[in-house]
């Protein structure tokens, strides 16, 4: 068996940045809704799970927040943390990684481990957009692969939340591309072992992340309004020189075009996933 879990004590190495340098500035008290432009009090947003109470817009949340919303309290056990190398000697990559680590307190763009959701054991992986746009390099690829492998070994379902912007991490070049194959194959084995994978597409799920593991869910769910696609809307517009259709590449667009099973509000997500896990439980504890 792979050493996927860190040794006990099972503490996270993520450094929760406690400094709040801009404290007192209105930016930190209020936030403008990207969709309806309402000004919303941050404390209010925390209560609504970062969903605009005016228009239902789902703000992006961090992987840590997502984890908090999704798993049974105290049940998360992270995998051994991995850190990136710089296989292409891409100029400035190390510095970028270091900066992202400091800003997010994460080792790379993913939080992954085992957890219980409504009492059901799962492997859960959550991409964090704040870490270099949630792009998939060797670390994200390896962690997801370990996730599926662990799930096969222990006959567990996998749940992922993929909010990766550009998809691939170009600083790792071909190694980043190959993570698409690696994660797809890991899921392929998991699928062939008859196990459940619920893929949740959060804003934005694009590029190599969308074109690999995230598209291979038995059930694919999205949050309302999430941007979902392979090529980014700007590049599509530039290439085709056509006006993009209204709602192009939104979750609603994907649902209409047959690419999603359902769209679920953040507040109902845990309930939906919990029910789906229940209905796929192998011991038939329905």
């Amino acid at each position, binding site marked *: 068996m792979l050493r996927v879990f860190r040794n006990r004590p099972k503490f996270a190495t993520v450094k929760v940045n406690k400094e709040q340098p801009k404290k007192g500035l209105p930016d930190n008290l209020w936030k403008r809704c990207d969709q309806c432009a309402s000004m919303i009090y941050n404390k209010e947003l*925390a209560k609504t799970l970062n969903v605009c109470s005016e228009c239902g817009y789902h703000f992006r949340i961090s992987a*840590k927040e997502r984890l908090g919303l999704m798993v049974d309290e105290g049940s998360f056990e992270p995998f051994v943390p991995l850190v990136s190398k710089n296989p292409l000697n891409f*100029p400035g990559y190390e510095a970028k990684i270091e900066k992202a680590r400091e800003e997010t307190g994460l080792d790379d763009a993913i939080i992954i481990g085992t957890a219980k959701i409504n009492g059901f054991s799962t492997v859960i992986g959550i991409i964090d957009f*704040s870490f270099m746009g949630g792009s998939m390099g060797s670390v994200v690829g390896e962690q997801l692969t370990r996730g599926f492998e662990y799930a096969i070994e222990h006959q567990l379902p996998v749940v992922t939340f993929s909010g990766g912007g*550009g998809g691939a991490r170009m600083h790792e070049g071909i190694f980043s591309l190959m993570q698409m194959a690696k994660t797809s194959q890991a899921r392929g084995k998991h699928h062939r072992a008859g196990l459940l994978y619920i893929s949740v597409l959060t804003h934005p799920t694009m590029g190599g992340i969308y074109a690999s593991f995230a598209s291979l869910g038995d059930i694919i769910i999205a949050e309302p309004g999430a941007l979902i696609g392979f090529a980014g809307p700007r590049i599509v517009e530039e*290439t085709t020189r056509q006006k993009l259709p209204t709602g192009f590449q939104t979750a609603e667009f994907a649902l209409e075009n047959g690419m999603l099973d359902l769209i679920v509000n953040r507040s109902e997500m845990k309930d939906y996933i919990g029910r789906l896990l229940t209905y796929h439980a192998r011991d038939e504890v329905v």
Partner: protein
Amino acid sequence: MSSSFEWEKPLIELEERIKELKDFIVEQNIDFSAELGELERKADELRKSIYERLTPWQRVLMARHPKRPTTLDYIKMLFDDFIELKGDRTYRDDKAIVGGIGIFNGEPVTVVGHQKGRDTKENIARNFGLPHPEGYRKALRLMKQAEKFGRPIITLIDVVGAYPGIEAEQRGQGLVIAECIEQMSFLRVPILCVITGEGGSGGALAIGVGDRVLMLEHAWYSVISPEMCANILWKDSSRASESASLLKLTPTDLMKFKMIDDVVTEPLGGAHRDHEVTAAQLRASMKRHLAILKKIPIEQLVEQRLERYRQIGHFQEKIITETLSNINNFNDIDSELDCEVDEANE
């Protein structure tokens, strides 16, 4: 696009001079063979030195040469017979991907490959070799047919990247690329992939998962095209020659990284200078690799294929030195912090 590059100019000039001289000699009936031999030796040296020192960006341009053989050109040269099979049985026959049954070395194989146009009209019909979802679905259909009948699969890859088009997105190219990658990985027949020209991102990988990956000398393969990389790094596509170097997209780099298994030498000056010689070189490499693959029991072959990709990645386990904080204590997380991070990333 002209059919000769800036860097070829001195060579082309010299070649023309030699030709003139030859014509003169024939006309005058003089014996000048020694001098002529010397000149041709010099031209050879010049050729070698030019093509050995090609920058990665020049290589990308070579891979895009309008006279470079396309998939259908290779199919004609590599196979003794070929029956094209069309359609995805779902939506459309995508002309940007061609496929069918070919006879390679006396044996039926399934071939699929990206098909660029050989002139403007064909390029429009074939969308410059940029597939829509139905193209990938056709490829997958034919590959599964190959699996049913135990035929080896040969893929010929030549695409700048996935197509950033409205309909391609609407019909789910991300999803179908994922399906291709996943299903190819488990096919119970030998798969030989050849990057003949451009190997751009998901568009290439969608038919690029195999037991052996061969690459022509002046082909490139990367997670992103140099132009798009430059666009992201410096908001300036014209700096593609710089990003091409950063991306390590040449066969030499990729051999070093163990991402490919063989580099197929092209005629001096590139495949477009001699299609037949290029095809002969490629055929020899394909033959050699296919012979090896066919000897491996199928279970083992699929296992090896999966293991090949399983091993790809550069990372290390983190040495834990920082203060530990319990990640399960969610209440510690201040949502205000994340707002900052978001802003930093816009």
